[in-house]
């Protein structure tokens, strides 16, 4: 079976160059804590807006999930 053609005309078998991989992997170290902080900040803003005290915890949990989603997505993309 022939491989599915890339809609953007990229060669699916071509390996990314070394520096592109360096940039992608260097992102992994930052993206997880950044996602947790972003979730926490959104939660805090919603708490402030809705006069509640618990949404920041939900924000942190969603931030952790978002961090994992980005990590898994990046590693899947790199191991393709």
């Amino acid at each position: 079976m022939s491989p599915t053609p890339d809609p953007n005309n990229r060669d699916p078998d071509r390996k990314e160059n070394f520096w592109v991989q360096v940039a992608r992997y260097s992102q992994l170290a930052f993206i997880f804590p950044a996602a947790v902080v972003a979730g926490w900040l959104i939660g805090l803003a919603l708490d402030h807006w809705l006069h509640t005290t618990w949404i920041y915890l939900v924000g942190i949990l969603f931030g952790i999930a978002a961090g994992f989603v980005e990590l898994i997505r990046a590693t899947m993309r790199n191991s393709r």
Partner: protein
Amino acid sequence: MPEQLWFTALLNRLFAGPVTAFLRAIHIEPHHPAAPIPNSLAMEILVFIFLLILFFAVRSRLSVDRPGALQHMFEGVEGFVQNQSNEIIGRHSEAYTSFLVALGCFILSCNLIGLIPGFESPTAVPIVPLGCALCAFIYYQGQGFKHAGIGYLKHFAGPIWWLAWLMLPIEIISHLARVLSLTIRLFANMFAGDMVTLVFFSLVPLGVPIIFIGLHIGVSLLQTYIFVLLTTVYLQGAVSEEY
């Protein structure tokens, strides 16, 4: 009164009145009404003026037969970014090259201006990398909407429709995390580079700081490259057909 560089002092002497009046008009009280322009903004303005003059100089001397050194250099930079984005985004990547080159030139100039005595790197202040990251964020989201229209929102819903309620907040947070990650990476590296150079310069004023100035140049180039490259990767995610 905050400590001001000579260029900041000059701008504050010329424009402090109108800037303070403008800030008050939008209900922002400046910390120092006599000097509302901080060093980072002054350095950004200086970099902007420098790049504008440079681009006009290149534009006025464009020649097919006898290209000058500046034209060669900018064609090299443009070709490098073009090849890079073509490799990552694929077809139609030419449309994004101008933004990516401008972003790269601005960040690199901001990173390197700190090496000139009497100036400092504006990227070592968090608000400047945040501004660059927000520009990149707004640009790639805009291109996503331009490319797919309202259908771009499907990117946020995830591949499985019945999990959309869960994926939507996760995707929103992960996109905002990209802004934070771009900001912190650039700010932390430039701040640390400045500090290391400063510390060694105060300990051993001769010889040794040259090594760290070299390191600072290397870090400046690498961080600019990573910033532009990640913006290209995010652009690719926004304009690609696949999820």
